[in-house]
């Protein structure tokens, strides 16, 4: 199985604090890869490195044989990497559709059609709307397209972020705590949606989660972080069997 | 450039720089405690000069008493401004508060123009008399000396107040952390009022110092506002020694450039200094890495 994403010896130091030390991880193409660990383990930091929001102090990041560290943040969408945010980066005063449309990119820069009401413009806008609605359908939220974000429950908002990420037609979808704040039913639905996305869209998914049951349902492989280091990496059920993983979670609440 | 010209430029630069610094102190005081970028600081100063000219002087007080009364009067105006313009809707963001001060600036200017005509020059009495002193080849007018002396005195007075009195301590606490200060029992509201009173009084002083030098007209302090902000920015917006240094640096740089090239270089230079500082050292020239607060 080819590794779509290769993380090699990634170290991140903030001043005196080591957020990540020598992290290695391989995400196979077409797989759902879990990234778990207690609070403060560095999971979001690793995601932020891959998402080119933080610069690692050392290490390599290779996506589809492309050196990610040579890329600026705004190249990622074009390369095929999309993500959601742990603390939700949505525009509360805009509609769901407006937010999801942010994910849409068009090849080439801005054209005349962005400034004048031409027929092509309407055609393009209709196309965009259709894509956005299809993305919302993947998470079963298309009926809320014209509602303002501020009025929707937390769980829906997390899924809207996923729809937005899908609009970039990514190869790798990175989900930061998509299960936080969801009730069991919603979590089941998300699990089904993730698996469906993997099947129908050929996605590779890297997801951070605290919910072990969800992980076992959905993931093909898991990497476990603790205090910035990888302590285990392999099949999902090692969360039960691996002694180090159990020790890391002792006392943690989840 | 001969030594004479150099010295004269330096003197002029230090005097101007002192004025930028003093106005900048008022700006930093308000910015660091109440978080407001007060774009009306210059117009408040102009208003102070006009107030003394039209209201206080005709009453027949001695010049010194008239000065002090004006400063006090403007201090009260500062409190009024705080209650009417700043205090309502305190949840607004800082940019909105700055916009309100823009409106205030316009209001003060239009009141000035209404009463005293646009750009009509008035002669303003000098506290220091004409005449000059010579130190070797360097000639300092009484105005320059007096202005510098008053500016320094005002700054020293302010620092003494700020660093060694209880109200000053309250101001420092609020500037450092408003929530914690409130928890420690500081009356943040009262401190804010005091801040505006003191800052406006200082601005009035600057206006009274500038008016005798040029003519008093409605555009008196317009050139000073951005320069005072530049001084404050050089100091990092939160530092008093910083803004003083910033003012002096700007004033001297301006004077030297004017002497070396021409008067036309003045404005572009001030803008260039502003841009350079913001781009290269946005936290101010003197910020330690510990207190890295972006402007």
């Amino acid at each position, binding site marked *: 199985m080819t590794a779509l994403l290769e993380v090699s010896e990634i170290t991140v130091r903030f001043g005196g604090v080591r957020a990540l030390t020598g992290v290695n991880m391989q995400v196979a193409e077409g797989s759902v890869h879990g990234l778990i660990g207690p609070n403060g383990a560095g999971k979001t930091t690793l995601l932020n490195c891959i*998402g080119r*929001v933080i610069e690692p102090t050392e290490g390599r990041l290779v996506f589809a044989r492309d050196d990610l560290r040579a890329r*600026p*943040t*705004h*190249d*990622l*969408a074009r390369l095929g990497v*999309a993500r959601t945010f742990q603390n939700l*980066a949505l*525009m509360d005063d805009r509609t769901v559709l*407006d937010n999801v*449309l*942010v994910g*849409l*990119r*068009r090849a080439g*820069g*801005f054209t005349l059609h*962005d*400034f*004048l*009401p031409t027929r092509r*413009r*309407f055609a393009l*806008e209709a196309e965009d709307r259709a894509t956005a609605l299809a993305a919302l359908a993947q998470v079963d939220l298309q009926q809320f397209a014209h*509602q303002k974000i501020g009025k929707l429950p937390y769980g829906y908002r997390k899924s809207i972020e996923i729809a*937005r990420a899908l609009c970039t037609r990514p190869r790798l979808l990175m989900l930061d705590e998509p299960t936080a704040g969801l009730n069991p039913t919603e979590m089941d639905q998300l699990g089904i949606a993730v698996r469906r996305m993997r099947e129908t869209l050929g996605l590779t998914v890297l997801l951070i989660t605290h919910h072990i049951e969800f992980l076992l349902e959905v993931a093909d492989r898991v990497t476990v972080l603790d205090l910035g280091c990888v302590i285990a990496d392999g099949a999902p059920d090692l969360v039960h069997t691996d002694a180090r993983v159990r020790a890391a979670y002792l006392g943690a609440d989840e | 450039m001969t030594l004479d010209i150099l010295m004269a430029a330096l003197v002029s630069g230090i005097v101007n720089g002192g004025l930028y610094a003093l106005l900048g102190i008022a700006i930093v005081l308000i910015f660091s405690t109440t978080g407001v*970028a007060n774009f009306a600081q210059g117009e408040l100063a102009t208003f102070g000069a006009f107030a003394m000219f039209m209201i206080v002087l005709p009453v027949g007080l001695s010049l010194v008493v008239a000065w002090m009364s004006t400063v006090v009067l403007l201090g009260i105006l500062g409190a009024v401004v705080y209650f009417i313009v700043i205090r*309502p*809707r305190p949840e607004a963001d*800082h*940019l*909105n508060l*700055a*916009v*309100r001060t*823009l*409106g*205030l600036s*316009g*209001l003060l*200017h*239009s*009141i000035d*123009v*209404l009463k005293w005509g646009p750009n009509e020059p008035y002669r303003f009495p000098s506290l220091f008399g004409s005449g000059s002193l010579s130190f070797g080849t360097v000639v300092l007018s009484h105005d320059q000396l007096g202005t510098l002396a008053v500016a320094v005195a005002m700054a020293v007075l302010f620092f003494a107040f700020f660093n060694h009195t209880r109200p000053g301590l309250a101001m420092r606490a609020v500037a450092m952390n408003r929530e914690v200060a409130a928890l420690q029992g500081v009356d943040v509201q009262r401190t804010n009022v005091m801040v505006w009173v003191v800052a406006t009084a200082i601005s009035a002083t600057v206006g009274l110092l500038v008016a005798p030098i040029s003519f008093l007209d409605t555009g008196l302090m317009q050139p000073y506002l*951005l320069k005072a902000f530049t001084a404050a920015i050089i100091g990092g917006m939160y530092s008093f020694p910083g803004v003083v240094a910033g003012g002096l640096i700007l004033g001297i740089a301006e004077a030297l450039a004017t002497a070396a090239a021409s008067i*036309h270089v003045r*404005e*572009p230079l*001030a*803008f260039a200094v*502003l*841009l350079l500082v*913001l*781009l290269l050292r*946005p936290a101010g020239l003197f910020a330690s890495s510990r207190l890295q607060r*972006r*402007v």
Partner: protein
Amino acid sequence: MGDVPFGSQEAGHTSPRSRVLLTVLVLVLVAPLFATGYMRYVATLWMIYAIAAVGLQIPIGLAAIYSFGHSAFMLVGAYAMALAIMLGGWPVPIAMLAALVLAALVGALLALPSLRLSGFALAIVTMGASSLFFQSVKVFKLTGGPQGLFLPEFAFVKAMDGRAFYAICAGLMMLGLMVSHCVESGRIGRVLRASAANPLMAQSFGVHLMRVRTLAFVISAVYGSIAGSLLGLSTSYIAPEAYAPDLSIQVFAAVMIGGMARAWGPVLGALFIVLIPELTQSVQNLGAIVYALIFIAVSTVYPGGLQQMISGLRARLGKRVP
């Protein structure tokens, strides 16, 4: 309450409400053709300020960039056009185009530091730029020094007692409004809003921050330049005082008072700016005071401007209808 923007999102289909608004707008715009010459002059001024304000709404309303450098764009629009006409003998439209290109360049330059500067710092820099341009034109003989430049009187400005010129300004304003609406409701608006709301998120979705901020500045510069050119033509005299940094604040006030959310807000705000000095003509400069008071009142209490007041009214009236 679902807010349907000016012009619906459905392709080529406008909602009944916007059709009404459009009709009203057209009527209002046609009216000055039948009024007195003086009223036409005021209406022309309104159109010019409206163009400037609609342009300023793009960086401020969409990208949350507080640009106080708008007077610099208007100044370039006026002076560059005048110089092209007087020195190069260029026809007016070409001269205006040249000025527009120059202003766009200035806009792009102002955008350069925008990534490294906070909102406040950028605001100060734009203020500084306004001041710099203003001081500079007063200094050089080429730009007429403190006296300014005298343009030749053009036939089309005075033709039909000002009707032709008014029609041109109104036509340009409508064009500007249409373009602004397209920008606001389309991809550019989305990208600008995202970059303002959360720059990191926007970048993660392919937004090149520098490019979009430059675009915002350049668009506003184009509008400002056209407005400045028209302003110069309207009086045939380009006085530096007319393009002082104060002008930036005035146009900003128009955007703020009119309300930033909808395309027509700045047009309403511009009307306000132009009308107040007219209505308070009896007492000299009282207009400026009234205007400043309203500015303070709006920014302090009604930050959403007239739009906020109007939708507040509608909400209260609408509550009776289930």
